[in-house]
């Protein structure tokens, strides 16, 4: 009989500890989710800007094939290496900003 009482007490203690851990975990999930929700629109906006900038860079690199005068500008920003030969290796010396 005493053994059963002891076992039930241990179970109750484990249950209380589990409930406390669940409360702590719930608070952590709540705070982290709120922070993530606050940061995500910013991250989405930055990603959209990066996509647009990537498209602009692609167009600029395409333009640089017609007008190589822009090459020093791109090379100064490390967006294009100066060792890019014309021909089949086109595009290999280009660097994306991402």
């Amino acid at each position, binding site marked *: 009989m005493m053994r059963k009482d002891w076992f*039930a007490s241990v179970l*109750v203690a484990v249950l209380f500890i589990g409930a406390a851990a669940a409360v702590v975990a719930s608070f952590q999930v709540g705070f982290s989710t709120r922070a993530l929700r606050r940061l995500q629109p910013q991250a989405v906006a*930055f990603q959209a*800007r990066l996509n647009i900038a990537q498209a602009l860079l692609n*167009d600029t690199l395409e333009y640089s094939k017609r*007008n190589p005068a*822009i090459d020093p*500008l791109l090379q100064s*920003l490390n967006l294009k290496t100066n060792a890019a030969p014309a021909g089949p290796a086109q595009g290999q010396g280009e660097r994306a900003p991402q």
Partner: protein
Amino acid sequence: MRRRRARRKDRGREPRNDLMTEPELPGTSFAASTGEAASPEPLQRQVQNLRALFVATLMALVLLSVGVNIFLWYQVRTVRKELKVTRAFIEDYQKNKDPLLNRLVSSLQSFAQDHPDLTPILEKYGIKPPSGQASQPVPAPTPAIGSTGR
């Protein structure tokens, strides 16, 4: 008169059928619970059954608690990882990408002053070429990138 008295006596001897005071189950009567009518063995068995039921319920609750905790900690880990990635991306953008984009756009604007054939490309992305001379400061180009899109 004698007959009436005899009937009243008979009524007093008859077992009363009062549904409000008598329990439906015979084992749960007050007399049984006080130990007057029932022997202690069934009571002890009932207590043991109740204790076993209590322990079984506790074990089920502990199992449920373990499951809930595992799920919650998995959620905590996932959300924290996502938060870390998002913060690193934003920090990297603000520290490295944004200045680079600003320099690229301002350089392209300066270049477009001498090479007007670049202007359509800039206009395609909502970047206005500077209206004044090259010595004038360049308006903030980064908002124009995100303002129109493609």
